[in-house]
């Protein structure tokens, strides 16, 4: 791993020295030995701060939309999930692919629960790949949707109770939204208090509105990076919602995974004459 870490530092240094990019987004050390944090590297000297180890868990792609990024081309370190997140953001037209330089890092899995059901450990898009590809792990549809299937086994009343209990924990910190690469809107609906979509108060109705609205906003675009669930301070099973939508899409239209390319039809938001309509 340290080989790749030195290669990463070398690459970053070269990109910054040659002026190919103005900033490299990667992971850096924190005061905790088992935690890393996203860092914005803007000088060749700072390239030494980049690390690559089992604790590099934070999704980085979303940081390209952060206003700490300087103007000009950005480099981002991408594992499999980060590369799909980049595709997500590019496909949603929030960044141009040509304004990004992707440093691909094949990933053997990190300290995050989501990594157990990761279907793309090798970056699906990159400009340079550091280290050889790693073997992909076998993830069955059953494994992928295991949490959803368990909930589908409950009666509607039990499901309602379950979600009421879960939603009641939410404190509207919006961390799930901030971490999510599919939540890339300039001005989130939840922040538009004057329109009245989302109330600030923490109660049954408002918590439910937030949970369900966000799930529907990202459901058919979710790249299954697990960031939402990882960052939630209250431990809400957020991915069970988005994966329910993904599971339904898979059941209806066959295998469907997001973020594998940066241009595919938007499955629930587009209409084509050849679409299935046997349910009508």
């Amino acid at each position, binding site marked *: 791993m340290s080989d790749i870490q030195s290669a990463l530092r070398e690459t970053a240094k070269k990109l910054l020295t040659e002026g190919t990019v103005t900033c490299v987004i990667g992971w850096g050390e924190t005061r905790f030995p088992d935690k890393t944090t996203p860092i914005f590297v803007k000088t060749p000297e700072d390239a030494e701060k980049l690390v690559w180890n089992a604790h590099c868990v934070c999704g980085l792609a979303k940081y390209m939309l952060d206003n700490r990024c300087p103007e000009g081309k950005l480099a981002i370190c991408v594992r499999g999930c980060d590369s799909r997140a980049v595709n997500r953001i590019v496909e949603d*037209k929030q960044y141009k692919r040509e304004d990004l330089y992707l440093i691909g890092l094949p990933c053997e899995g990190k300290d995050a629960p989501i990594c157990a059901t990761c279907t793309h450990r090798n970056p699906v898009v990159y400009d340079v790949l550091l280290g050889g590809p790693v073997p992909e792990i076998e993830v069955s549809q059953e494994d992928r949707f295991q949490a959803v299937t368990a909930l589908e086994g409950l009666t509607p009343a039990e499901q309602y109770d379950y979600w009421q209990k879960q939603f009641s924990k939410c404190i509207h910190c919006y961390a799930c939204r901030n971490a999510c690469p599919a939540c890339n809107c*300039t*001005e989130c609906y939840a922040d538009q208090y004057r*329109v*009245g*979509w989302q109330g600030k108060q923490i109660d049954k109705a408002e918590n439910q509105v937030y949970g369900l609205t966000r799930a529907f906003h990202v459901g058919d675009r979710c790249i299954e990076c697990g960031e939402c669930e990882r960052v939630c301070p209250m431990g809400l099973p957020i991915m069970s919602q988005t994966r329910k939508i993904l599971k339904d899409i898979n059941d209806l239209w066959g295998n469907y995974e997001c973020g594998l390319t940066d241009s595919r039809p938007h499955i629930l938001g587009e*209409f084509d004459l050849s679409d299935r*309509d046997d349910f009508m």
Partner: protein
Amino acid sequence: MSRIGVVVCHCGTNIAGVVDVERVAAEAAKLPNVVFAVTNKYTCSEPGQATMKAAIEEHQLDRLVICSCSPRMHEATFRRMLKDTRINPYMLEIANLREQCAWVHTDKEKATEKAIDLMRMAVAKVEQNKPLFTSTIPIHKKCLIIGGGIAGIQAALDVADAGYQVTIVEREPSIGGHMVMLDKTFPTLDCSACISTPKMVDVGQHPNITLMTSSEVVNVGGYVGSFEVTIKQKARYVDHTKCTGCGLCETKCPTKVPSEFNQGYNKRTAIYKPFAQAVPAKPVIDPDSCKMLKEGKCGVCAKVCPLGCIDFKDTAKEYTETYGAIIVATGYDLIPWQDLYGEYGGGRYADVITGLQFERLVNASGPTEGHILRPSDGTEPKDVVIIKCVGSRDPHKGKSYCSRACCMYSAKHAHQILEKLPGANVYIFYMDVRTPGKGYEEFYDRTRADGAVYIRGRVSKIYKENGKLVCKGEDTLLGKPVSVQADMVVLATAMVPAVGVEKLTTMLGIATDPDKWVQEAHPKLRPVETQTGGIFLAGTCQGPKDIPDTVAQASAAAVKVCGLFSKDEMETSPMISGVDQQKCCGCGFCVNCCPYKAISLVEIDAREGARRVKKTVASVNSGLCQGCGCCTAACRTGAIDLSGYTNAQILKEVDALCL
């Protein structure tokens, strides 16, 4: 502070019979900002409107809620009424207490509660209303007609006679469509070519009509009043500006291929006119069969042409033009029965033919000069079976609908056989005989008197035995199996939309029904309009029908176009979408879901913190937007909003209902 007036209509007893209208008005009076609330016997009537106008002045109202029938019924009436009051016509909301309440409920107490809810929602919404203003768009008085069958021809002549410019786009080398292929037309049995070719000639010579044959529409932009249409004309290899139609080339061309017009029963040359009376009466070269174009040798036509019209280097050309209105008249094709009905031989038996093939065999200018002869051996058939509803009314194999013309043309065919072949026998297998038209039932009666034998039932199988085609089926009236030995079988095959019509309807942004027939805006009240302003329909592109109905629709569509062209500009609805560029993130989701292609992404200058940046945002074309609201549902951030149905208005309605 707004000043809202609420008027609750009795609609005679239509509403008042089920809803306690006085209670609804009393509840309205209690709501904040409602300064006037009454009931009225007939709000839409002259006195009803006068009362409202007086109240608006007297109470200085600035918004109005009318609890009455569906807005589809009288919204326009009430808006017109408000035009000469102090209230903007769009400061009006209608609560539908009739169709959505009184007519669908019987429990007076519950219906009244629901009516109060509907009224409260309308009051909550009207609080948010803003004055809206119509604008106008210019109208280019030029009409495009797509398809040159009898529908397109009739519509073109009507619009052109009214003094407007017309272009007909026909994909075949000649106009005429299916009607010129027919021999005689029911029920009067006049010769189809004799009544349609004069009209074709009129089209060809009309000073207001431009004819574009061998052409198709390849792109449509714009909106009612100014559609930008690109038409592609295929290479014809003959310069029609010079050609006089002498036909010398056709006589000398050595290449012979089956004639489409004669259903393959005889040959045409590679340089050809589809039929003698074709309009334009000038040949084209078929590049798929011409030796010169395929193999680089021959060129006989070029040598014999006295005017040097042949140009083997001719290429397709594109023309772009602005039209104020479009009439779709693309007609029908026949269902590919061979693929669906293996039990009828699936096309293996030469003497099992379609009605359209029969029309050519019985036609005096057809391949047999009007003698009914079997395609297989050229002999006269003695026993002929006609099978109706092949592909029609057969949801399992074909289509569930009735093709409408087959009952009558099958009777016509029976009559023609019995007349031309004395001693012949005709057996008609049918499910029902449908003759709803002037003189149709009489025609059917006459055919039976002529000796046609009608057998009620479907044929389940046709097979060959001893040189005969054995048709096995069931006579459902006798409840017995029947078997008829025939020399020839004529299938009345279902009409289906013209091949490739989906491409055109997608381009035009108009809807089709599940069978791909073009969808009319309203089956009864707007039968020749589509949902898209300025696009009309005529003839069988909308559904199977016979010539009288086709022509009637064509003239109706022409009147609609002339009505549109009688004005220089038209008012547009202000209830369209607009984009808040601040909120819009340029994701383009709305672009993909707009059924009218009204939205595009544009780049603007914006400020982000201290930076000046180029930003991509959505932008709505106000001429194209029809106010359907799809985009507002697709936009996650609520950046796109529909005037008259804003997110804020709808949220207030929901609050009024739920809180």
